[in-house]
């Protein structure tokens, strides 16, 4: 086997190869449909174009999905992130809307601190329900998912709060080095999470708790504390995402801010290669997953696919991504093409990825 062939095979086997391929195919299809799709121009001193839109709009999803990755890696799930987005956005916008000077930086920072504080409390609530009381994560966070929407509406008194605050707006629409500020915020959060999980033992501890909570506890890891922590981190990420979503339209809508973002986030995590059963997690994959989901949405608008078929179109792409990533499906496909006998199957059920001791 030649060296180049080997390298190609390694590339093909990389777990991010197929998600990247799908992203490239989508971008290529868009470019064929409209050659100007990827073009970026300078407008008012910053970059302007569809790729920039995709990056900016995927920033909130990247944030939510980062938190979700950690939660899923412990074998849990956090359905409440969308509601946390709505609550944090509503609190921040309400405080700013009541302030005499909405452009005051101190006012905006106070609003952000208050909203973030509330989100941390909500995350702690989730964490206590799951780690201390021992309720199943899907149920524990479902409580806040449902009640949280009501809470957001209560904060906003059932209205859409419109604000006119320059500094707050900047979170969603500001620019740094000609690129949207939101991208840098998401990137900073990703680097922070990566540094804490990959440069310290924390990441491995999270994975080991997800692999086997009881064994981790017996090995001396305080599993409960780790589980509690990931829900707080998830809520914090969701809160910042909520700021971005509301800043993007300068208004907080308790009903619609972050609606269904939990599902998109879970999807991003899965596309990124993290197993829903817990264990190993891949932050880079999650970010890629979020980019794919946003590109898909933008594609629907850019190609003007009719709203009635848009959902089907999205479903087909998502199924395709999941299938080509599934080792079992790929093996079957290869076998049929080459006609060689099937490789010995391991267990038919998907195994949890265990962390090597």
């Amino acid at each position, binding site marked *: 086997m030649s060296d180049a062939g080997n390298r190609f095979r390694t590339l093909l086997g990389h777990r991010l190869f197929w998600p990247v391929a799908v992203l490239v195919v989508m971008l290529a299809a868009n470019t064929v449909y409209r050659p100007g799709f990827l073009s970026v121009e300078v407008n008012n001193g910053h970059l302007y174009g569809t790729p920039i839109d995709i990056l900016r709009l995927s920033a909130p999803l990247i944030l939510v999905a980062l938190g979700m990755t950690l939660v899923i890696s412990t074998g849990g799930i956090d359905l409440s992130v969308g509601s946390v987005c709505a609550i944090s956005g509503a609190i921040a916008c309400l405080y700013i809307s009541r302030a005499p000077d909405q452009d005051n930086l101190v006012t905006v920072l106070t609003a952000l601190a208050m909203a973030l504080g509330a989100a941390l409390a909500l995350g702690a609530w989730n964490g206590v329900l799951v780690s201390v009381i*021992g309720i199943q994560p899907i149920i524990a966070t479902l409580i806040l998912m449902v*009640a949280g929407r009501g809470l957001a509406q209560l904060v906003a008194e*059932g*209205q*859409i709060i419109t604000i006119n605050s320059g500094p707050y707006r900047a979170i969603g629409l500001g620019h740094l080095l000609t690129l949207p500020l939101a991208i840098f915020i998401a990137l900073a959060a990703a680097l922070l999470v990566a540094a804490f999980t990959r440069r310290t033992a924390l990441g491995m501890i999270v994975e080991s708790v997800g692999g086997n909570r009881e064994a981790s506890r017996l090995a001396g890891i305080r599993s409960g504390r780790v589980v509690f922590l990931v829900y707080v981190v998830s809520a914090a990420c969701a809160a910042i995402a909520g700021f971005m979503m509301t800043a993007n339209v300068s208004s907080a809508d308790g009903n619609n801010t972050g609606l269904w973002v939990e599902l998109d986030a879970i999807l991003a995590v899965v596309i990124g290669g993290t197993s829903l059963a817990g264990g190993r997690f891949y932050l880079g994959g999650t970010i890629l997953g979020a980019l794919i989901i946003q590109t898909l949405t933008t594609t629907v608008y850019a190609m003007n696919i009719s709203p009635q078929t848009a*959902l089907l179109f999205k479903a087909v792409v998502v199924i395709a991504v999941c299938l080509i990533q599934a080792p079992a499906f790929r093996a079957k496909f290869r076998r049929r093409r080459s006609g060689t006998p099937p490789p010995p199957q391991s267990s038919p059920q998907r195994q949890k990825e265990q962390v090597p001791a």
Partner: protein
Amino acid sequence: MRNMRMPMARRRAMAVVAAVLLAGAVAACGNSDTGSGGDGGDDGKLVLGFSQVGAESGWRTANTNSIKEAATEAGIELKFDDAQQKQENQIKAIRNYIQQKVDVIAFSPVVESGWDTVLKEAKDAGIPVILTDRAVDSADKSLYKTFLGSDFVKEGRLSGEWLVENKKDATGDVNIVELQGTTGSAPANDRKKGFAEAIAADPKLKVIASQSGDFTRAGGKQVMEQFLKAHPKIDVLFAHNDDMGLGALEAITAAGKEPGKDITIITIDAVKDGMQALADGKFNFIAECSPLLGPQLMDLAKKVHAGEEVPPRIETEETTFTQEQAKEALPNRKY
């Protein structure tokens, strides 16, 4: 399993926590006035039981306030229930009203289907029912007396007619982009239909792109951003509600165009923020979808209670606004 090995005391503690949570949730949801136990009609006042969808938007809140105020003014005793967007709550509320023997029941259905049984119960109890704002798809039209609400097709048609008039001197094609409401919802379907019918009168008016913005600002903005990049020449934006139009405003400004001048903007609803944008010259035209149907509802309730015949379909009194009209009307708007 961890729970299996949990000591009894701890399991009991968990049950208590769960019970407290549940009680809290029930208390939070049960803020309706139906439980007050008043048996209607004792003091000769007409009793109206009304079940509202929820409080999901400024429009809905204005709708609720209008009904409450109109009831007080008309001397009607109102039993009000907020269904929190759940059909089962609404069915429960209607059954409560039937048990309390109210004189008239009115409600805004959360969804279109699944009402036959409970409406039949009301009919058997001899209580007339009025639908407000949204219709039901029951085949048996005798289950309710009348449907009071906006005509969404007409709202779309009025928007289209204004555009035909406004662009009658334009030369060359007029490119229109459309922001639809939630896919499959009645207002989205009907407004699209009415608009398309009206602009068919002028062949140079062309809808070049139409996408769903889900009735939200974020949705309207995101779709408009792509429209602006895909189509260099957009002359008109037709948004199925104010919020999507408001979101699109930001996208238009970011693209370096001036809303209201470079792109003519037509929306529907006339909520406060939308009227403000119209008065500021950023929108060009709004067809009203008025939530203030309280007085009409009270009027109808009295009529059906007295046994008078009422038409099966009654439109809410609505109007349209241009920029000048918006400036005049804005100080007096209730929502």
